[in-house]
């Protein structure tokens, strides 16, 4: 197992290196001069040339590339043209908020999506199955911004059950920043008022994001359960005299988990990129908004840094999914362990 993880980590490094190279060349073929974006439309040619030297764009391509690699090796992602701060600092500031929101959304999606899918499969074509289908359909097809606004309208404006957009009530003081995730930091600081408030603030955005993930997870869980329920070993379990509940819990469900875990991994990876619309509606200072602004203003260093981060988090989630596979499906460990 340890060997397998090591091998996967090495291949992860190769993946990241590949992404770094691709990102560098992609940033070169952008048909707009990034300096125009930095310097602004009114800048005189002299300033532009000076800035070109400052950012190293006057150097030959290979020099630029080696500088880029050298900087990456020192975890230096360069300065953001937009915020004027190192990109790494920006990411460290924005990513935890996204990570926190995505994780809560995933928990919601898993906790509701899997049972919903399993029950739909077991009670196939029942009222419950149809209801689950409608919920899933809403989850995938309802525009996030619209759902977000409706939730805000109902639960904040009309009912006042949930707080306003943002991460924390303005009257509360943030706990010392350790992980950047308010929920964790407030636990570390032992500040339960902040914890509670931050949790309440995250409910609506996490639900909006979670509903989207839930839909996919429930559909996959349903179809893989249906597949497994028709397998011979499920019949065997019944012949042994197990009750239907245990047939499902012990024999069907564990075997239906592999495709479901794949879906969870993909969804989680997607959520970690940051959800622009949700973050915007709920004033959530996450990576999605940061990267969107970076794209719109051609903030190249921020784009490259953000792309790297997304790639790495995707790869890590994938690694986690693969490790879970090995645990869920004994065939997989062996095949890869020997190879």
């Amino acid at each position, binding site marked *: 197992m340890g060997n397998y993880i090591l091998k996967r980590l090495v291949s992860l490094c190769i993946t990241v290196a590949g992404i770094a190279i691709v990102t560098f060349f992609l940033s070169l073929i952008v048909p707009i001069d990034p300096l125009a974006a930095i310097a602004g439309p009114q800048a005189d040619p002299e300033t532009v040339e000076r800035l070109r030297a400052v950012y190293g764009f006057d150097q030959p391509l290979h020099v630029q590339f080696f500088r880029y690699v050298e900087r990456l090796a020192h975890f230096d992602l360069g300065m953001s043209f937009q915020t004027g701060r190192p990109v790494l600092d920006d990411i460290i500031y924005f990513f935890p908020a996204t990570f926190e929101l995505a994780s809560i959304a995933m928990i919601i999606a898993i906790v509701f999506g899997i049972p919903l899918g399993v029950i739909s499969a077991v009670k196939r074509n029942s009222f419950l199955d149809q209801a689950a289908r409608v919920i899933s359909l809403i989850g995938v097809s309802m525009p996030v911004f619209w759902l977000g606004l409706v939730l805000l309208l109902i639960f904040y404006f009309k009912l006042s059950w949930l707080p306003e957009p943002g991460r924390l009530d303005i009257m509360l003081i943030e706990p010392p920043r350790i992980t950047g995730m308010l929920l964790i930091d407030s636990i570390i600081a032992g500040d339960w008022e902040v914890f509670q408030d931050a949790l309440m603030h995250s409910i609506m955005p996490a639900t909006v994001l979670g509903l989207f993930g839930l839909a996919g997870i429930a559909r996959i869980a349903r179809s893989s359960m249906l597949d497994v329920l028709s397998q011979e070993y499920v019949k065997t379990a019944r012949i042994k*005299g197990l009750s239907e509940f245990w047939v499902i819990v012990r024999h069907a469900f564990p075997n239906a988990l592999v495709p479901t875990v794949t879906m969870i991994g993909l969804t989680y990876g997607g959520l970690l990129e940051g959800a622009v619309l949700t973050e915007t509606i709920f004033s959530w200072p996450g990576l999605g908004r940061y990267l969107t602004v970076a794209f719109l203003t051609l903030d190249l260093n921020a784009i490259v840094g953000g792309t790297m981060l997304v790639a790495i988090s995707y790869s890590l989630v994938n690694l986690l999914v693969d490790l879970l596979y090995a645990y869920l499906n004994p065939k997989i460990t062996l095949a890869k362990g020997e190879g």
Partner: protein
Amino acid sequence: MTVGADKNNLLEVEDLAVRFYTLRGTVHALEDVSFKLGQGESVGLVGETGCGKSLTARAILRIVSPPGKIIRGNIRFEDKQLLELSEREIRQIRGNQISMIMQEPKMSLNPSMRVGKQVAETLMIHDKSLGKRGAYAQAVDMLNAVSIPDPKHMAKRYPHELSGGMAQRIMIAMMLVTRPKLLIADEPTSALDVTIQAQIIDLINNLIDDIGSSVLMISHDLGVVAETCDRVIVMYAGSVAESGLVRDVMENPQHPYTQGLLRTLPDAIDPGQPLYSIKGTVPNLMDEPLGCRFAPRCPQATDRCSSQKPPVYDVGPGHQVACFLHEATSPVAGTSVGVQL
């Protein structure tokens, strides 16, 4: 009904009918299936694919899944009417008093559970007092009993690490570890290599003798049935055509279908002969069963055969046939095909 509510019979199936209600129509999968199985007896259930052999077995265990439905019949096991039991009561019989070995051993084991645990599970379902350790220890002993080498180590394996033959041994261990009174073996060797088949059959027979179980051996292989069974029941298109002692049926088949079936076996004495085949095809089970199901393919069929269902005639001691050809010479045997030995 009840030519014999004979106490010696472990299992009596009477007038069993199973239908599948599909969107395209009703499939009359089993019609008036009746047979008996004595204490300690081994009975073969033969017939071609789709004739309802496995379905009969599933109906006995009440695991016919929708859209299939048992619509009629009685299944008496010892003193219990299986079709009248609650779900809870039938579960106490499944795997405990009636077990079933399935056709595809590798697909019939849970791929994500160690095999030892799967064997132990059967015990734990039916004897809660055993505890995990006790059940596991017994399971390992059982693996030894089915001649699995190094059972302690093998118990920790997963099904995909086993050969088909090994997997079938695990399956046998899993289903016999509770010492059931009746074992249904649904084509236990069809998915295995020919070389392994004999070993598995011997293994089942030896274990059955030790435990004293009765066996219902489902097979399309007449050879297997001839070797292992006392009696044989021949099914065609959801109904019983003929039943009797293996020797009687094999040497002196009375139903035109059985006669045809036996002629299809390659002739060992005269190997040069082309293989015989029964003309025509199996009837569409969607059609309302009128008359004898075999009539359209039967070389001796009369007009009556396709409109009137033949009763069962006693053609010899314990030998019964559902065919009008015996009307003149043999008495009607009540309503059930079966034998009192």
